[in-house]
């Protein structure tokens, strides 16, 4: 147990800090789904210094450094310290690029990785379908082989960024008669292809963070497959692996906790600081203990990663606990504000732009979507505790 960084890393931290000091004036604002020109400039600057796309080979537009988790963490810490936006973190970068690096053809790598990293090519992900839910492998979007092209028909849902995307990476059923996990292929194609319709999917937050995407006879050249035909399920799982790490970040919880502390120091009820209400204070402290636990648990996972060891249970529980924690933090923030806490939609007296209500609802979506809490519990019990999988059912006719 040693929480100090050694000299090499201490020096690296100073280097990143120097960069931050020198370039903070260039930091772009966070915006919508498509990077602005300021964001693209910033992204290219980060890549050039190795603070984004750090381990992607230079041949494909990355910085080309050897993987070093500690350096990645230091970069994240310093950027958080200076409240600077880090490198772009869209689905193209976090999911498609690793997949192409692992399974793409040289041509695909050359065509897609660099523009994606630079924010000039924006991707969306076409996995989920309305009828499939957690049972992703039961997807029905069909890709018929006409010799040269796949002809795609079907519907995707939960496709964030679809309305702003240039391209989609998408799971489609190419072998309708194969067992459900073996008839799927992983395709990439342009969102400008004829036959694609994008409909925004409004959620309870009032925003449209997701879309439905409809395909009607969309033609995709058969060369645009990633991995082997029928192997799309396994290609996608290589990608999903990367996604899990994106959720349950303890730094998000930590910064929310700090914001609530400020809120409780400033908001008043009947002239008393909310902080002086013992019930809210007790909830705050309960959540602080949880935030700390997850933060330290994150350090434990990081250490495992540094040693090349699997984090085991410490890793498996992150999503379940992290999403729940963020949701509980939002609930506390709302409660300490009382009636002010329910104001929304830009109402007068709304606090922090309604962000707490937005989070309370959006986080519920994270608990539910992207591998529900229910599925996380299955994973923890089966992979973490080695408990048996749900036994197979008798045929439908045998059910009482």
């Amino acid at each position: 147990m040693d929480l100090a960084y050694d000299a090499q890393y201490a020096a690296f931290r100073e280097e990143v800090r120097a960069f931050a000091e020198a370039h903070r004036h260039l930091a772009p604002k966070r915006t919508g789904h498509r990077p602005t020109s300021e964001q693209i400039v910033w992204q290219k600057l980060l890549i050039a210094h190795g603070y984004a796309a750090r381990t992607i080979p230079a041949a494909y537009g990355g910085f080309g450094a050897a993987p070093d988790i500690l350096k990645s963490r230091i970069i994240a810490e310093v950027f958080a310290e200076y409240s600077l936006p880090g490198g772009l973190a869209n689905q193209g970068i976090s999911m498609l690029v690793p997949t192409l690096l692992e399974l793409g053809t040289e041509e695909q790598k050359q065509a897609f990785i660099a523009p994606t990293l630079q924010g000039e090519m924006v991707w969306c992900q076409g996995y989920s379908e309305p009828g499939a839910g957690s049972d992703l492998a039961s997807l029905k979007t069909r890709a018929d082989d006409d010799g040269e092209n796949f002809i795609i028909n079907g519907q995707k849902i939960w496709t964030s960024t679809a309305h702003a995307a240039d391209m989609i990476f998408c799971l489609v059923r190419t072998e309708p008669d194969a067992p459900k996990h073996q008839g799927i292929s992983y395709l990439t194609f342009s969102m400008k292809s004829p036959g694609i319709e994008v409909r925004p999917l409004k959620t309870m937050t009032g925003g449209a963070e997701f879309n439905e995407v409809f395909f009607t006879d969309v033609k995709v050249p058969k060369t645009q497959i990633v991995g082997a035909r029928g192997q799309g399920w396994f290609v996608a799982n290589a990608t999903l692996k990367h996604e899990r790490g994106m959720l349950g970040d303890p730094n998000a919880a930590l910064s929310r906790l700090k914001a609530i502390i400020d809120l409780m120091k400033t908001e008043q009820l009947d002239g008393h600081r909310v902080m002086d209400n013992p019930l809210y204070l007790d909830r705050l402290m309960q959540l602080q203990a949880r935030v700390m636990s997850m933060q330290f648990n994150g350090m434990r996972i990081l250490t495992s990663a540094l040693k090349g060891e699997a984090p085991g249970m410490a890793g498996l529980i992150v999503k379940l606990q992290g999403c729940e924690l963020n949701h509980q933090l939002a609930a506390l923030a709302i409660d300490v504000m009382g009636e002010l806490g329910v104001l929304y939609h830009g109402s007068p007296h709304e606090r922090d732009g309604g962000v707490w209500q937005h989070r309370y609802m959006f986080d519920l979506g994270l608990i539910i979507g992207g591998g529900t809490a229910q599925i996380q519990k299955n994973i923890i019990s089966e992979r973490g505790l080695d408990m048996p999988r749900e036994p197979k059912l008798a045929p439908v006719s045998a059910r009482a």
Partner: protein
Amino acid sequence: MEFALTHDQIQMQESLDRTLERVAPLDRIRAVADQPTPLAPDIAAAVAELGAPAVLVPEAYGGLGLGVLDAALLAEVLGRHAAPVPYIGPVLAGLALSLSGSESQKLAWLPGIASGKTVLGLALSEFASGARMDAGVSASQGMLNGKALFALDAATADAFIVADRAGGLHLVTANATGLTQTALTSIDRTRSIAELTFKDTPSEPVDQGDVANTLIRMRDAGRVLLAADTLGAAQRMIDRAVAYAKERQQFGRVIGSYQAVKHMCAEMAAELEPCRALIWYAGYAQDALPDEASLTAAHAKAHLSEIGRFVARTSTEVFGGIGITDLLGLHYLFKRIGLNRQLLGAPERLRREAAVMQGFIDA
């Protein structure tokens, strides 16, 4: 000894339920909620036709002369449908006038409230929930000054009943000089709340009889109505989640056959069902058991706030991703429960008040 609803009460609920199913289907609720303020004169008229705003108004003034329990039963159905109509404002304002209005005030306002032609808003938040942002209204020589936050049913109000800092009640018309009304927008777009600022605003006192007691009865009745609204919304969320779970298939079987889903539904039902008896009792106590009225109202509102939050979240979880979209409109119920929680006393405050009422601690 009969702890049950009467035949009339059940019929009254069913009839409002059927009406709302007809006049306030999801697409209508959505259209109303998408407006800047929730104006739905058609729904309000249909609800008024069934006597909802008349429930507490004495028969002599054109009302139904029923009790808070009846009002709560109607609130439950309104909650069940997330009905975008004024209700708590007119009902409590009517109660204020019935208990402490002068005869001429009663004659002037109660028949209109009962028929639904007149809507009264209510500014009671500082008294019932505590003051945020130093809000509060002072009365002097027939004039009001100051600010009242979170006035209920404000958008279509013709007048307001306003509680001042000193425990007095006042009637102010919506077009009175010096009254500025600023709409506040909450997560719940089916009900309107507003900030009222008064600058030398002329008002009439509502000061007959024991006004302190009137204020308490308004507050307590309001808490029972909000709790009942949450009960209705939460029960609907359970009903819809159970129905969905029986239809939706995943991994080759309906999700309602998975033990985890069944147990979530069972836990929701087990938590919510006793709340129904609590609301019935609290509603009944308002008129029949004065010694228990404030305590049961505080507990009903606090407990339904907690159970409502649990049900809102858990039922959404049963739906999976579709539950958080706008498609099924579940969120109107979710947000209704969310707003109710904070109005007229958040649960933490209510529990403290409940302890004070019983003499367990000093105020």
